C-alpha cells in the first residue's frame, strides 16, 4: 500500500521515478471503490479519468515540491473552481464556484492532485459529521460510530489511506476532534497563519484552515505549502513561514509542558485520562519537563464559544438568500437553524450586552489565562475529547450533550493559539484516543518538533483501522 508511506518517502520515490502519480491515483481509486460505500467520505468525488489525466500530466513534469503528484482531499468548505462546493448543506447542493480558495490554489500550484471534496457537518456546525445533508461519515474503527467533525470526511480519508493528506477547517475542534477519533494527526493553526479566503465562513474570528495527515511530519510538510499572508484575507498574518520540516529534530531539552489539572478531574472517560497522562513518560524521555498547572477559566470556554460562534455564524449565513447562488433559507438543517437563532438572540437588542459583549470580555480573560500559563511553559497538554466517538444518531437529538463533546477544543479558537492533535493510544474496545499540544501563537514549529519526536518514540499513529483486515477487502 503506497499511500501508507510518508509524504517525504512518496516524494522521493516520485522524484526517482520509481513510482508515478498515476500509480498513486489508481491505488487511491481502487481503495475508494472498495471501502467508501461503507464510509461515505465524499460529497463530491472527482471522475477518475479526469484526475488520471492530471496525474499523467504531473508525471511529465519535474517535481518542484514534495506534494507533487500526491493525491489529496479537501473539506467541502473550500471553494474549488468548476468543482461543486456544498459545505455539506442543501443550500449549496448545486453551487459550482467560479473561483478558487487560496489554499486550493496553493496546493494546485504545489502539484498536489485533488481527488474530491469531503463530507462535513454543514457549515462546520457539529462535532460528528452527522449534521450533513449527504448522510453521516462512518468511523473506520467502528462503522456504527461517528467519525467526529466537522472535518470528518477529511479525517477518514487519511485514516483509510484514500489520500496522502487532507485539508480540514477548525473553528472549535473541527480538525482535532475527528483526528483524535480516527487515529490521525491534525493541526489547528494559529489564527491568521493560513488564508481563509474562499472557505465557507462559520465564525470568522475563530476559523482556521489546517491539514490532517498520517503523521506530524506530513502535517509540517503541508503547512509549509499553504501558510502565509494573502492579500485576499485581511486577517492573514505577515509572520514569516518557517521551513517546519527542517526543524523537527531540534533538541527539546529543558522545554516545559504544562498539564491543567482541572481537565483531568471530572467529565473525562477514565481510559482516555489514563492514556493521556501516560504520555508524560515519553515526553520526559525526550528531555521535556512536565508541570502541573491550573486553568480554572477553561470551564467558561464553551459558553464563550457558543455565544460568539453562533453570533458570527448568524451574520455570516445571512448572505444565503437564494438569489445570486444557492437555495433559499428553508434548506438549513435544524442544527444550523439552532445556531443561527442562538446567535441572533445573543446579538439582539436587550441581550447584546448580557451575552455577546459579556462573552467577548470573558474571551479576553481566557487570552490572559493562556498568557499566564505560557509564561512558565512552552506547550500545554490537553485531551481532545472527553469520550470515545458516539454511536451514530446518539447525540443528534440532544444538542446540549452534543455541545459538551467540544469541551476541550473550544478554548483555543477564541484565543487564537495553535494546537496539534496526535494519536496517543486506544480504549479497551480499540477506539482511538487523541491528545492535543497547544502552543504560543505562531509556535507551530515547536509543536511539530514535540509531536514528531513523540511519534518517532511511539507507534500509535501507525496502527490501521480494522476495516482493512475484515473479510473481502484485500486492498
Amino acid at each position: 500500500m503506497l499511500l501508507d508511506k510518508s509524504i517525504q518517502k512518496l516524494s522521493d520515490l516520485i522524484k526517482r521515478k520509481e513510482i508515478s502519480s498515476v500509480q498513486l491515483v489508481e491505488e487511491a481509486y481502487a481503495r475508494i471503490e472498495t471501502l467508501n460505500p461503507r464510509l461515505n467520505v465524499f460529497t463530491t468525488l472527482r471522475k477518475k479519468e479526469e484526475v488520471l489525466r492530471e496525474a499523467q500530466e504531473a508525471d511529465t513534469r519535474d517535481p518542484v515540491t514534495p506534494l507533487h503528484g500526491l493525491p489529496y482531499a479537501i473539506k467541502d468548505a473550500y471553494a474549488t473552481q468548476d468543482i461543486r462546493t456544498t459545505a455539506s448543506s442543501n443550500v449549496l447542493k448545486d453551487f459550482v464556484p467560479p473561483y478558487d480558495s487560496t489554499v486550493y490554489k496553493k496546493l494546485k500550484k504545489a502539484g498536489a492532485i485533488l481527488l474530491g471534496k469531503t463530507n462535513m457537518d454543514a457549515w462546520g456546525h457539529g462535532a460528528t459529521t452527522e449534521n450533513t445533508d449527504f448522510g453521516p461519515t462512518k468511523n473506520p474503527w467502528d462503522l456504527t460510530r461517528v467519525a467526529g467533525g466537522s472535518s470528518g470526511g477529511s479525517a477518514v480519508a487519511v485514516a483509510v489511506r484514500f489520500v496522502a493528506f487532507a485539508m480540514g477547517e477548525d473553528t472549535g475542534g473541527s480538525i482535532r476532534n475527528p483526528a483524535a477519533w480516527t487515529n490521525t494527526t491534525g493541526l489547528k493553526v494559529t489564527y491568521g497563519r493560513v488564508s481563509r479566503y474562499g472557505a465557507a465562513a462559520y465564525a470568522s474570528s475563530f476559523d482556521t484552515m489546517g491539514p490532517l495527515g498520517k503523521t506530524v511530519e506530513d502535517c509540517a510538510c503541508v503547512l509549509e505549502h499553504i501558510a502565509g499572508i494573502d492579500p485576499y484575507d485581511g486577517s492573514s498574518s505577515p509572520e514569516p513561514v518557517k521551513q517546519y520540516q527542517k526543524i523537527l529534530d531540534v533538541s527539546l531539552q529543558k522545554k516545559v509542558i504544562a498539564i491543567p489539572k482541572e481537565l483531568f478531574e471530572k467529565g473525562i472517560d477514565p481510559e482516555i485520562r489514563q492514556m493521556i497522562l501516560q504520555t508524560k513518560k515519553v515526553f520526559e524521555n525526550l528531555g521535556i519537563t512536565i508541570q502541573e498547572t491550573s486553568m480554572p477559566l477553561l470551564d467558561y470556554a464553551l459558553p464563550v464559544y457558543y455565544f460568539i460562534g453562533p453570533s458570527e455564524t448568524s451574520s455570516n449565513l445571512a448572505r444565503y438568500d437564494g438569489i445570486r447562488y444557492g437555495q433559499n433559507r428553508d434548506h438549513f438543517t435544524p442544527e444550523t437553524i439552532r445556531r443561527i437563532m442562538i446567535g441572533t438572540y445573543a446579538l439582539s437588542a436587550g441581550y447584546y450586552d448580557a451575552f455577546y459583549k459579556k462573552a467577548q470580555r470573558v474571551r479576553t480573560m481566557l487570552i490572559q489565562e493562556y498568557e499566564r500559563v505560557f509564561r512558565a511553559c512552552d506547550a500545554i497538554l490537553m485531551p481532545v475529547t472527553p469520550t470515545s466517538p458516539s454511536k451514530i444518531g446518539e447525540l443528534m437529538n440532544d444538542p446540549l450533550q452534543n455541545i459538551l463533546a467540544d469541551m476541550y477544543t473550544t478554548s483555543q479558537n477564541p484565543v487564537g493559539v495553535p494546537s496539534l492533535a496526535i494519536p496517543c493510544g486506544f480504549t479497551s474496545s480499540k477506539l482511538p484516543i487523541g491528545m492535543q499540544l497547544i502552543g504560543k501563537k505562531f509556535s507551530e514549529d515547536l509543536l511539530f518538533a514535540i509531536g514528531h519526536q513523540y511519534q518517532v518514540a511511539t507507534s500509535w499513529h501507525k496502527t490501521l483501522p480494522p476495516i482493512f483486515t475484515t473479510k473481502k477487502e484485500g486492498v
Partner: protein
Amino acid sequence: MKSDNITTDVIKHLAHLASLNITDDQVKTFQSQLNSILEYMSKIQQLNTDNVEETTNVNGLTNVFREDIIDESRMFSQDEALKNAIRIYHGYFVVDAILE
C-alpha cells in the same frame, strides 16, 4: 440574566429576524432546546468582567490596506456571475417584489 424568558414568542421573533421559516412544532422544540443550552451557557454571568476590555479579533493586525487596483484576472463575466443563480432574466438576477 435568567434564560427561562425564552418564550415561543421570542423564538418566533428570532426566526423572523433571521428570516427562517419554522413550523409550530419546531417553535416548541427550539424553545426547550434553546432554554437548556442558554441555561448552561449563562454561567459566564458568574464572572466579574468589570474593567475587562472586549476582544473581537486575535490577529493583532490593524488597518490592513491594499492599493485600490482592479485585478482583471479576478473579474467575473456576466455569465459567470449569473451561472449559479436559480432565477435569472435577460442577464439579471430575479428577486421577489418588495413593494406592493
